[in-house]
């Protein structure tokens, strides 16, 4: 059988969802942002909620997320996405509202907005990309940068005695009564990407039930910021990030 016979519409098993636009992503080669975008877009497509979804983009590498999601979106000030999402959800409670934020945005400058939106139990999905570094501004130390990890503002490695400890904000968030589903995933292997996809789907399904905030952390690589190839960065992530930020569900709905 020739290959040409396989490439037919009825044999299609995976293609870029129409909930993603055709724009070329501006992310560096191998960056987990693109995969995370696509998985969320996939889920929006699968649930058939493109017309009912409003997203909020952060400040950081994913500041231009609204170029790639083909849904109505608002661009928030740095760290304020959960407040913007609160404003949207309060006036349009029937819509699905998500924020997409990096670690600097969510766990440093936006800590108050994040914690209080979660504590109020806003019926929104927060997607949190944790790559342990400020990517867009050129690789500075983030609230999630590991002890000893080098960045342009911790060139000799993060010294926790003077620079403070990395913040495990997801564990903190899980303690809040307003959160309904809190999980930490990754997108660097097919298995992990599929788990993330399921987590995002669950989170949006829960939003329909008005159960509270759903929070999906995705531990991701930053090849440029970490100064590694994409493949090296994924290996480094497994060896260094995952021991500190273990993958898996942190809070699941009670049966």
């Amino acid at each position, binding site marked *: 059988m020739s290959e040409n016979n396989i490439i037919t519409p009825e044999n299609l098993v995976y293609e870029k969802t129409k909930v993603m636009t055709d724009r070329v992503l501006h992310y560096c080669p191998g960056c987990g942002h693109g995969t995370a975008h696509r998985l969320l877009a996939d889920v929006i497509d699968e649930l058939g909620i493109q017309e009912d979804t409003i997203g909020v983009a952060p400040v950081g590498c994913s500041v231009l997320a609204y170029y790639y999601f083909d849904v*109505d979106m608002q661009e928030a000030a740095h760290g304020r996405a959960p407040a913007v999402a609160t404003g949207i959800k309060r006036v349009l409670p029937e819509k699905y509202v998500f924020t997409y934020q990096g670690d600097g945005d969510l766990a440093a400058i936006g800590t108050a907005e994040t914690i209080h939106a979660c504590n109020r139990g806003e019926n929104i999905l927060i997607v949190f990309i944790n790559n342990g570094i400020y990517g867009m501004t050129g690789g500075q130390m983030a609230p999630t940068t590991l002890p000893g990890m080098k960045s342009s503002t911790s060139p000799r490695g993060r010294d926790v005695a003077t620079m403070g400890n990395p913040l495990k904000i997801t564990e903190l968030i899980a303690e809040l009564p307003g959160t309904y589903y809190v999980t930490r995933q990754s997108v660097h292997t097919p298995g992990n990407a599929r788990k993330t996809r399921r987590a995002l789907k669950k989170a949006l399904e829960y939003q329909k039930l008005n159960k509270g905030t759903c929070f999906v952390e995705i531990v991701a690589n930053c090849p440029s910021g970490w100064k590694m190839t994409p493949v090296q960065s994924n290996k480094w992530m497994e060896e260094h990030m995952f021991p500190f930020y273990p993958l898996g569900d942190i809070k699941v709905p009670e049966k």
Partner: protein
Amino acid sequence: MKELRLMKGNEALAEAAIRAGADAYFGYPITPQSEVIEYLMRENPVDRTGMQVLQAESEVAAINMVYGAAGCGKRAMTSSSSPGISLKMEGISYIAGAELPCLIVNVVRAGPGLGTIQPSQSDYFQAVKGGGHGDYKMIVLAPATVQESVDYVKLGFDLAFKYRNPVMILSDGIIGQMMEKVELFEQMPRTTEEPEWATVGKKPGRDSVIVTSLQLQSEEQEKVNLRLQAKYRVIEKNEVRYETYMCDDAEYLFVAFGSCARITRKAMELAREKGYKVGLVRPQTLYPFPEKVINEFGSRMKGILTVEMNAGQMVEDVRLAVNGQCPVKHFGRFGGMIPSPDEILNALEQKIIGG
């Protein structure tokens, strides 16, 4: 039907918000305006009109909630007082940049810093010259009475949506805290319109809506800035509001806004009793500023005194408007102190008539 009530300024403003068909209020307590959110929470307008009211974790969060709701095409508002407005300035700049309509109320107290909870007009510059970063303007309405506090809520929302621009009511602790007779307008319905610029969910056949103030290309950012400036020129042409008192035969002129204009009006009467021909201009819009009328008065006055509860802010705009045609001086009390009519009359005699 007219509904007359005796109401505190902050509470009347809150009632006006419900009646103006506001969709959402997001606030944070700060003296001297906490009665706004207290009244709304007590009144629970979600039962009356469906209006949402939320106490945010900070002024920063509150203004960004306004951004989110305004981006959905809704009538969203917040209120605060000076230190809280400073915190909101980031969000206001983003709202101006994203061209969203909203209403912001500043019941001004004295600064700098934590200052005092007593009334002041020391946020004039912050309100009319920008406050936040970037080239932008807010329409600034300055009520002198509780009645105007009420009327400007409705006017403010109308102007905000007409121009897709933030509007500020620049009040002060006197107007917020005092009780006056007020005529309330009838309940207006909340809008069901979905403006084409609003994120309400992507409809089939149209592009997704993006609410943003970001332009990475300088050429594009300049285009946005030019569009904003063109809008501001239209606002300056169409939306100037002011009142004049006894200006026809005047040789001297007071310029004062807000609560200070009421005290200055009394000073004007005292001056008239002493035989000085004095008039008063009261700007109701601080941006756009009534530049033209003040320029015209400048050409035939012997001198102009601005009276402000600050160290001299609006006086700069009056001088720009007068453009050297006559002397322009400032008299102010500040730090929460309120000028008396006698003080103002004395300042007129010392700085203008005898000056």
